[in-house]
């Protein structure tokens, strides 16, 4: 699967070089638009991109619909984001976002290109938080709230979840290591999008956000 890449600004998914970037050509059957201004790049090229097998727009916290509309849009456009938690490096997991009107062939073509560079793809519909942020943020907020409630110490809570479920790292340790203020940012965005209380940032995340830049994690 040949493709080209158009990068506009810093990319959360690809902050450093990667096989996906290195394998790109000057032209190709597909197009990856990456960087924080990927949406703007799409608007500039939407007419000429109509003939491509796929166009993949890098997403931040926003939905794909922000760029291509919710009810009707180009069938060859997908969204994607490589999952990463705060200051951690991006994982190998790419959430590949489709709309109800997306052509399955476009999804398959984008998947092939991503997998060929060693990434793992999970396909999802265009919902706020996609798969992982949608699932994780209420869980992280609950862990932070229960810490305030005195359910258990940080160490015991993390130990229980690691031993009981085989998690490589407990939620409190993970949030502190990757930056609690990043959790605030993500969960606040989802709280605004979904309006559901479990996404409301826990007190400790609010404190971390207020104290960001002061060496707080």
């Amino acid at each position, binding site marked *: 699967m040949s493709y080209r890449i158009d990068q506009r600004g810093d990319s959360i998914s690809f902050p450093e070089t990667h096989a996906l970037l290195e394998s790109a050509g000057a032209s190709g059957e597909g197009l990856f638009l990456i960087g924080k201004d990927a949406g703007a790049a799409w608007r500039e090229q939407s007419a000429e991109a109509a003939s491509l097998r796929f166009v993949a727009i890098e997403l931040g916290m926003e939905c794909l619909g922000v760029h291509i509309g919710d009810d009707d849009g180009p069938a060859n456009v997908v969204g994607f984001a490589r999952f990463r938690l705060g200051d951690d490096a991006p994982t190998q997991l790419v*959430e590949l976002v489709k709309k109800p009107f997306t052509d399955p062939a476009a999804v398959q073509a984008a998947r092939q290109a991503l997998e060929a560079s060693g990434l793992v793809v*999970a396909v999802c519909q265009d919902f706020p938080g996609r798969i992982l942020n949608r699932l994780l943020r209420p*869980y992280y907020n609950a862990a932070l709230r229960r810490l305030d409630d005195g359910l258990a110490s940080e160490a015991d809570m993390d130990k229980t979840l690691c031993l009981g479920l085989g*998690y490589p790292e407990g939620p409190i340790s993970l949030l502190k290591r990757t930056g609690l203020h990043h959790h605030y940012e993500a969960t606040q965005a989802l709280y605004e999008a979904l309006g559901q*209380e479990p996404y409301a940032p826990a007190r400790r995340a609010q404190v971390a956000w207020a104290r960001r830049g002061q060496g707080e994690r």
Partner: protein
Amino acid sequence: MNDIKTVGVVGSGTMGTGIAIVVARAGFKVVVLDTRADALENARKQAAAFLRKSVERGRLEPGQDEAIMANWSSTTERADLAQCDLVIEAVFEDLKVKHDLFSSLHEICPPHTIFASNTSTISITEIAGGSGRDDRVVGMHFCLPAQLMKLVEMSPGMNTSDETFQKAWAFCEAMGQKPVKTRDTPGFILNYFLIPWHNDVINMVDQGVAEPADIDIAVKTALGYPLGPLELLDMVGMDTQKLLSDAMVGLTNEPRAACPPLVKRMIGAGKLGRKSGEGFHSYDSNKIFGA
């Protein structure tokens, strides 16, 4: 000091079978009680297959599997638990069922016998209150799959004696498990988080956010979890998830703990998980996890 020699395990479902394997593997005599003889036979076969696999994988010496199974006996009669020093119940999450069990065992077992509950959600103090010996009741919550997971959440009830708790703790360590002391609060630590997390995942499937296989691969790849949440739910079983959710939401009023409508539909359709051959994924055997 540990003077526990013979252990009763009540319930031969997924949890009970796993716990019985842990007990027998540690060299204790185990008596598994269930009301259904066919369930007992199935549990025995699953345990034997799991231990055989452990030998094949080099985790047990050849012949050790048979020696372990020699510690295993099954019964449908409560009276056969009369010689047990400890009884661990792994029956349905229903306070009345647990009271009925322990109050009858109170008449059968000697005074020194400790009653332990593998409850995930119900208060140990409440269970102990209907046992006839509330100073000798302790929470001992194993994790799925019990035969592989080391954690045991140990919770004293309000009237549990220090001696009881210490004996149960020592027994847990003697089995090679890793106990963590938790407060007697709904869901303790693990299920307080796990039940709502699972319900969130189920609701995501119902909302059409992603297919179960995609959710599982996302969680395993991005977070390094050994099992995807829907794979784990298939092990738990939809019927059990409903019972856990109903118990949890009744105790906490936590909206995320409310049983999702999809669980009820799956139960109605007979898609209970691994035990029925189909849940969020399909299975071609009912072998216990790891076998």
